Structure formats: structure tokens, C-alpha cells
């Protein structure tokens, strides 16, 4: 809440000593730049401040009093998408009497087509009237700063990638007996340097991807796909890596109860996905499964239709994730901090990128884990019917005059 944090209160406002506490509070609400709206239990507007009038363009305080809140406060997602009614956090919070804290979205003016990025909060204050306080703060400046920062990181990563690639390249020439002769000790040192340069290269690549996904420069190119065969094809590519790591790889069956229904019947489950995104997602989750598993363990990959979703799961019997870390694993640079993980290389961006890519395709990702026993990642994507799939395939084939496949 930033109600009382504003620094730029207009100087012409003086507060004579004669003001009572109540009128001081009213004065504060009149001058702050955050929009404040108070409703009763039914969502009827009982109070709003001048900032709320300006931001919603509802004309005047008198115009808005007595109206339902949703007539003047309309929001879109940060990506400027309309919310479905049952997924609209404003409506959900208002009808459930649950608080909403600093939710970033777009405030759409009811009069013109003006859109303001805001941080929206809703505080149920209870009492006889069941009042709710709705506040919205303009975050245009913050977002601009954020995007400038993103651009800086993007440029910096891009500039650094070329020299890193040449360091890695020269080290690989030094290590290759076809191109150089070195002694055994030098070989050890250069091998470590080569691995570090590869790590650095991955870090810059991931950073670039993060900036591209963050400011929507990398958008998914969605095509209709049969997900079970795509998942199998992508994970089968890891057969050699699984073998090398001493892990048993099973596709299509699962130890987890959630997944074991109907896995015997050959199924098809169509979705509308970006194949490059899907490749990155599955590669990253399988990489993790291998990294955090010990030889003798197993990795189970599955994909199946699940109502109106396609559910892909990747389960390992590895070291697992402690319960306290589980809610944070999709955050940037979050690493579960224990001796096992510190020795395992990673950029700290992998799962964040996986989540970004899943969400960019309209999907959801979550993980279940028992520390010491293993972890299962679930990716759920919107499913399309086989008729829808056929229809879209025909459209694409017409476009490509024969298509690629």
C-alpha cells in the first residue's frame, strides 16, 4: 500500500491547525495520486477520490456515487488481454471478499479508450456494511524503467555473447587433439575453463531469452500438434543421455496415481503450441531430471489428454526439492541452497524460462516433490479437439501449398 508514501503533495495545500483528524484524512485522499474507491458489500460505490475520477474518466464524483464498481473500474491483463469473467481478479476478489494485493493490470477508461498500467489492491474492511477499499496506483513510470533495464540487460548479454563464444571456441581448439597438442595438466585446466565458458554462454543465452520473453519480443508461433507423439519424440532424443547417467527411462507409464489411468490405450491429444517452445520446455525439465538424479534411478515421461487439457509430466526419482523451496523454484535465480545443489551447475533461469514459455502458450506448470524421493513437473496446455486439429492443419497446408510434413 502506498497511500501514505506520496512525496509530491501539491504545495498549495496547507493544513491549518483547525482541521480535525477526519478531515485531515479526507484531505489526504483528495490530494494523493492513487485512485481510491470505497464500496459497500454489494459493490455499490460509496466514496471515490478525485484521482479515481481522473484515472477512470468517470466524469465526476457525483456521477459515480451509487453505481456498481464494475461500471467505472474495468481492467485488462498486463498483456492487454481481456479477462474471462471467472478469471478476472477484480471481480473474483470483489465477489469473494478476499483481499487482492498489488495486482499489476491495465485500467481501461470507461469513457475513452485510454489504458493506464496500474497496481490494483482491494482491501475488505468488514464492518456492518462490508465495505471494500479499492486502490489503484499508476505504474507507467515503473514499467518504463523496468523495460529500460530489460533492454540494457538484453543489449549487454548480446554484446557479451560473441567474445564468450570465441573463448569457448579457442578452448575447444586447444583441447582437440586434431588441432593442438597440450600436456595432461594443461588439459585439466583448459577443460575446467571450457566448462566455465560453456556455463557463461548458457547464462547469456538464458538472460537474452528472459529479456525477450519479459518484454514480449519472443512470442509463440502456435501450430496444431499431436502432443503425445511430440513429447515422446522430444524425450526419446535423450535416450543416450539417460543411459549415460545410469537412469531408467520410461515413456507413457507412471508411478504416480494421477497419471496411470488409460495409459495402455493409444491416445491422441491435440494442442496448439509453439514447437520450439515445447522443445525448450521438455529439454529443460529432462535436463533437470537428469542433473538431480543419481545413477540407478528412473525418469518417467508421460503425456495424455485430461479433459480439456493436455497434461505432460516428467517425474524423477532424484534428490527432490525441500518443501520450503518448492513454492519458489520458478523464480529468477532462485536455487535451493544445500550442498547437493551447489555442486550442480545451472543458470538459475531455466525453470523461470520454462514457466514463461508455458504461460505464453496459455498453459500452467507446477511441481510436486518429496525431498529425498523425487520430483514431478506437470505442464498443462489447452487441448483442442481432433476436428479443430484437422481444420487448422488443412488451413496451414493450404497456406504452405503442401506443407512441411
Amino acid at each position, binding site marked *: 500500500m502506498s497511500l501514505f508514501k506520496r512525496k509530491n503533495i501539491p504545495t498549495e495545500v496547507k493544513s491549518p491547525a483547525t482541521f480535525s483528524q477526519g478531515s485531515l484524512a479526507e484531505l489526504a485522499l483528495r490530494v494523493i495520486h492513487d485512485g481510491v474507491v470505497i464500496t459497500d458489500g454489494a459493490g455499490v460505490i460509496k466514496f471515490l477520490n478525485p484521482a479515481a475520477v481522473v484515472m477512470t474518466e468517470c466524469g465526476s464524483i457525483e456521477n459515480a456515487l451509487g453505481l456498481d464498481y464494475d461500471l467505472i473500474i474495468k481492467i485488462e491483463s498486463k498483456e492487454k488481454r481481456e479477462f474471462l469473467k471467472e478469471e478476472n481478479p477484480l471481480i473474483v476478489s470483489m465477489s469473494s471478499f478476499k483481499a487482492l494485493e498489488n495486482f499489476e493490470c491495465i485500467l481501461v477508461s470507461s469513457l475513452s479508450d485510454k489504458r493506464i498500467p496500474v497496481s490494483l489492491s482491494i482491501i475488505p474492511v468488514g464492518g456492518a456494511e462490508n465495505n471494500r477499499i479499492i486502490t489503484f496506483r499508476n505504474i507507467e513510470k515503473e514499467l518504463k524503467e523496468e523495460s529500460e533495464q530489460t533492454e540494457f540487460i538484453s543489449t549487454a548479454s548480446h554484446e557479451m*555473447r*560473441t*567474445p564468450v*563464444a*570465441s573463448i569457448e*571456441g*579457442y578452448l*575447444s*581448439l586447444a583441447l*582437440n587433439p*586434431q*588441432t593442438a597438442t597440450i600436456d595432461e595438466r594443461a588439459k585439466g585446466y583448459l577443460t575446467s575453463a571450457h566448462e566455465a565458458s560453456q556455463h557463461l554462454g548458457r547464462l547469456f*543465452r538464458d538472460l537474452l531469452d528472459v529479456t525477450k520473453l519479459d518484454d514480449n519480443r519472443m512470442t509463440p*508461433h502456435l501450430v496444431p500438434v499431436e502432443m503425445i507423439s511430440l513429447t515422446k*519424440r522430444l524425450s526419446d*532424443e535423450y535416450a543416450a543421455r539417460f543411459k549415460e547417467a545410469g537412469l531408467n527411462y520410461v515413456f507413457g507409464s507412471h508411478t504416480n496415481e494421477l497419471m496411470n489411468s488409460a495409459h495402455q490405450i493409444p491416445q491422441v491429444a491435440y494442442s496448439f503450441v509453439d*514447437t*520450439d517452445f515445447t522443445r525448450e520446455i521438455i529439454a529443460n525439465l529432462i535436463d533437470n531430471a537428469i542433473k538431480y538424479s543419481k545413477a540407478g534411478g528412473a525418469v518417467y515421461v508421460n503425456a495424455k489428454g485430461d479433459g480439456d487439457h493436455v497434461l505432460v509430466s516428467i517425474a524423477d526419482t532424484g534428490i527432490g526439492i525441500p518443501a520450503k523451496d518448492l513454492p519458489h523454484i520458478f523464480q529468477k535465480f532462485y536455487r535451493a541452497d544445500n550442498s547437493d545443489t551447489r555442486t550442480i551447475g545451472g543458470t538459475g533461469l531455466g525453470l523461470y524460462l520454462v514457466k514463461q514459455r508455458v504461460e505464453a502458450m496459455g498453459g500452467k506448470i507446477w511441481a510436486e516433490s518429496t525431498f529425498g524421493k523425487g520430483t514431478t513437473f506437470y505442464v498443462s496446455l489447452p487441448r483442442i479437439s481432433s476436428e479443430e486439429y484437422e481444420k487448422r492443419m488443412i488451413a496451414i497446408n493450404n497456406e504452405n501449398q503442401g506443407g*512441411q510434413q
Partner: protein
Amino acid sequence: MKIMVVEDDAALREIYSIRIAAEGYEVVSAGDGEEALAMAVREKPNLILSDVMMPKISGFDMLDILRSTPETASIKVIMMTALSADDQRERGERLGADRYLVKSQVGIEDVVNIIHEVLGDGANQDQAANVNPAQ
């Protein structure tokens, strides 16, 4: 067999040239598309390994000119790019690239395997085939 490496970064050009020469190929190199076109006519390489993002003439424009010039039309071309966007790949394939590689997805050893595969002279063809499965 002669291979031409086209890459504007001098260090990467040297790395690719040395590594590819180690496979027993004769290697020539160019720093931009313009130089590459002149050299392609003069040197008649069997294969060109080229970056897409280059000053003067981009890799795509170079490929377009190569394919429409009778002396160079049949040279095998492998394009490398930092961009992974599908439309870029489609453009490369439409212009007649034999392979279109995304730099972050392939290492130098993969590139060597793919060169052998495209020229059909390698022992590692099965391995190389796995590197860049058709979409």
C-alpha cells in the same frame, strides 16, 4: 573438398576455419557477404558455411544471389544464425539453404558433423542426423 567459411567476427572465423581444416578440408574464409560472393565465383567451394547477420550483404541476400548465379547455384550452403524464429528458418529454407542452424542449439562439433552429412563424406552420419531433426 573445399569449404568456405563466411563470418564477420574474426575470432569465430579463425576457430571455424581451423576446426574444419582439421577434418582434412581445404578452407577459405570471408568476412562479409560481398567478399564471399566474389570468393565463391573464384574459389568454387563445395560447401559454404555462413553466418546470417553480417554487414554489407546479409547471409540471406548472399544466398539469394548464389542460387541465382549459374556458377554458384549448386554449391551446398549451411546457414548459421542467432535467431531461432520460425519465419527466419522458413526464409532460409525457401532461399535454398541445405541446412539452417541456430547457433545456441549447436556446438562446433555438431557443425563439423553436419558438414560431413551435407557433403555425404562422413562416418558420423547417424549422429549428425540427430542434431537437427526436421520440424
